[in-house]
């Protein structure tokens, strides 16, 4: 009955699969320094273009350029590099610990170290992150004790979560790090709610929400955007686009939208897209968004363009769904190498100091690991007591739980 031909079904697919040669020549990488830095009270309508470009500071030859280039004291630059190095070293050891059976599971940050490490530097004490499982950099950048992180990973007797959570699901109110949830995106509206609470209380503290590219598809993402758009609370909404959601390429979540940053436009929320492998660019953009929040100008959406160079988790083998060498071909490079190159160029770092720092950090991590393992690993049997499992379901244990605890033999 129709004069139109039959419909066909569209399923986006990545261009390359295992066996193909990685090729990112189609990905447009704007020159470092080419994106302008608007005032923080800019009308979001005037910066639509910043959701379609990539804000970059460190140029190919390691020189900070353009409006977004922040001046950082030398010690802070070196500190930033060391944080990223420490996170990478931490990951490497914990991956090995998992393989050795010392814990059940691990998730690494390979290639994404700059994002959380630099972002945290834009926050003040008292601000609150609502992180996903791939933002341990927020803790590392505050020198949170690695031993405690490891105790959590090992679910041992000193695990701050008492062994109840999957490894890497840290929590630290003191360090502005909200208890990680295994459920994707749920924490996004919570970040907005926390920020609303801060505004309601005439406080000065701000919040930051975190999701991955894949997780932007979840419904809670919308709830967060709607409430952020309406009440304009002091919140930074971060989207880490590392190109993959387990085996699913970003095109499935992004659809026709162009970029994840563009999602902010329908909500009147200023939206920036930034080179996630550029420590200086991340810091600059985070500071801009934080200043907006602190000045009661409301939310900012930031998309970090990066690449998940490792597997999704220790349960994943990415060679089943993407070319092996894709990570090496990633055109935004390695955040640590880029920062290192800059610091060497600037004359405040050298290959020797780098090698030495690597060794120092390896020692630090190893020392922390030894301390943590002295308390116990998942397999060593020094877990928190089963009796403890009945605690904290409620502040006060109700009769039926007391009974169950007795039934369990405690």
């Amino acid at each position, binding site marked *: 009955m129709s004069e139109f031909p039959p419909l066909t079904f569209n399923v986006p697919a990545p261009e390359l699969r295992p066996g193909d040669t990685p090729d990112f020549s189609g990905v447009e990488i704007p020159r470092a320094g080419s994106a302008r830095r608007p005032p923080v009270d800019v009308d979001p309508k005037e910066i639509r273009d910043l959701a379609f470009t990539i804000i970059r500071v460190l140029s190919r030859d390691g020189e900070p350029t353009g409006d977004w280039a922040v001046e950082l004291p030398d010690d802070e630059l070196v500190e930033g590099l060391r944080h990223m190095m420490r996170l990478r070293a931490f990951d490497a050891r914990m991956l090995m610990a998992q393989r050795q059976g010392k814990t059940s599971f691990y998730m690494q940050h390979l290639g994404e170290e700059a994002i959380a490490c630099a972002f945290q530097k834009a926050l003040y004490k008292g601000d*609150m992150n*609502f992180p996903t499982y791939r933002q341990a950099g927020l803790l590392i950048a505050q020198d949170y004790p690695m031993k405690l992180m490891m105790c959590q990973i090992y679910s041992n007797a000193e695990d*701050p*979560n*008492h062994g*109840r*959570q999957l490894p890497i*699901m840290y*929590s*630290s*109110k003191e360090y502005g790090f*909200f*208890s990680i*949830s295994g*459920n994707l995106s*749920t*924490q*996004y*509206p*919570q*970040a*907005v*709610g*926390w*920020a*609303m*609470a*801060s505004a*309601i*209380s005439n406080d000065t503290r701000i*919040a930051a929400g975190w999701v991955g590219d894949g997780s932007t598809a979840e*419904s*809670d993402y*919308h*709830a*967060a955007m*709607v*409430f952020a758009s*309406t009440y304009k609370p002091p919140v930074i909404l971060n989207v880490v686009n590392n190109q993959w959601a387990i085996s699913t390429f970003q095109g499935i979540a992004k659809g026709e939208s162009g970029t994840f940053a563009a999602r902010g436009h329908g909500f009147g929320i200023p939206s920036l897209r930034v080179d996630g492998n550029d420590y200086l660019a991340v810091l600059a953009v985070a500071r801009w968004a934080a200043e907006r929040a602190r000045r009661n100008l409301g939310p900012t959406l930031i998309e970090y363009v990066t690449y998940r160079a490792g597997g999704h988790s220790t349960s994943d083998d990415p060679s089943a769904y993407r070319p092996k060498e894709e990570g090496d071909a990633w055109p935004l490079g390695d955040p640590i190498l880029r920062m290192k190159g800059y610091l060497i160029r600037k004359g405040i770092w050298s290959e020797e100091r780098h090698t030495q720092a690597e060794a120092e950090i390896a020692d630090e991590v190893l020392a922390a690991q030894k301390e943590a393992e002295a308390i116990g690993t998942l397999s060593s049997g020094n877990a928190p007591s089963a009796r403890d499992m009945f*605690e*904290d*379901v*409620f*502040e*006060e244990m*109700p*009769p*039926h739980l007391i009974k169950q605890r007795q039934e369990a033999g405690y």
Partner: protein
Amino acid sequence: MAKMTMIEAIQSAHDTAMERDERVVVYGEDVGFFGGVFRCTAGLQEKYGPTRCFDTPISESGIVGTAIGMAAYGLKPCVEIQFSDYVYPAYDQIVSEAARLRHRCAGDFTCPLVIRMPVGGGIFGGQTHSQSPEAVFTHVCGLKTVMPSNPYDAKGLLAAAIEDPDPVIFMEPKRLYNGPFDGHHENPVVPWRDHDLGEVPEGYFSLPLGRAEIRRPGEQVTILAYGTMVYVAQAAAEEAGIDAEIIDLRTLLPLDMETIKASVVKTGRCVIVHEATRTSGFGAELATLVQEECFYSLEAPIQRVTGWDTPYPHAQEWDYFPSPARVGRALQQSMEA
């Protein structure tokens, strides 16, 4: 003391809580300027300003999700879901987040939060304005679930819920908002002003969660009920001429097992009444607990009188609603067994 409807009592619980504690904020769909479609938050925005009582976008997951963030911050949000039939979009936030937060981080963050919602039928609301979803909350560890049956309890228990350090699901049987309802829909409702339990202190007071109340002492059979069904049970006992002991549970979780046990041990018989669909309803938990704890006292099978395992129909509402006659039959059967 003043005479209050259940609506006024709930409004008053909000009001006194907001007055006593700056951290209490109240929000939800149509809750601000208008004061809620059932008027349970009337006047609060005017009195406390839109910062502490405000309208939200129609997003139940957003309402609960933001409230969890606020609770973690240190406020005490008390939010309204317009009808319990619309709580499901927020179910993930409630189950995966509110209920688990304290446990998963060993108390580093907590979630003192109240989620209010009108429940139950008998108002020709059809399947999307009549549901009683308590069982999908009582199954979730980390939640408390409360359902008052009168203005006095509503105010006292809501005050306690707001003060509670953990998330509380607070269910309001909307068929009782203006007066007790005994299931005889052809009769006019008795307004709360003519009822003892419509007598409510104007100022602050609270009632502990987790305590049932015996509404009618009796010797022959124990009826476990809550919300609207308390009055249906009363009508049924009277009409059947059976000396039933009627326990109004008030809090479903944590449950006042002491009171239940003492009664069933005494009567040896038990009938459970709820409006929700039967299978896997809260009645199943009650029956199971009773047989676990009172097995040797039981002289008859525990019976359930409940909504049928169908959606709540519009036209056939009174065939669905557990009537005094149905409860009466169950009492009779229990006595004869």
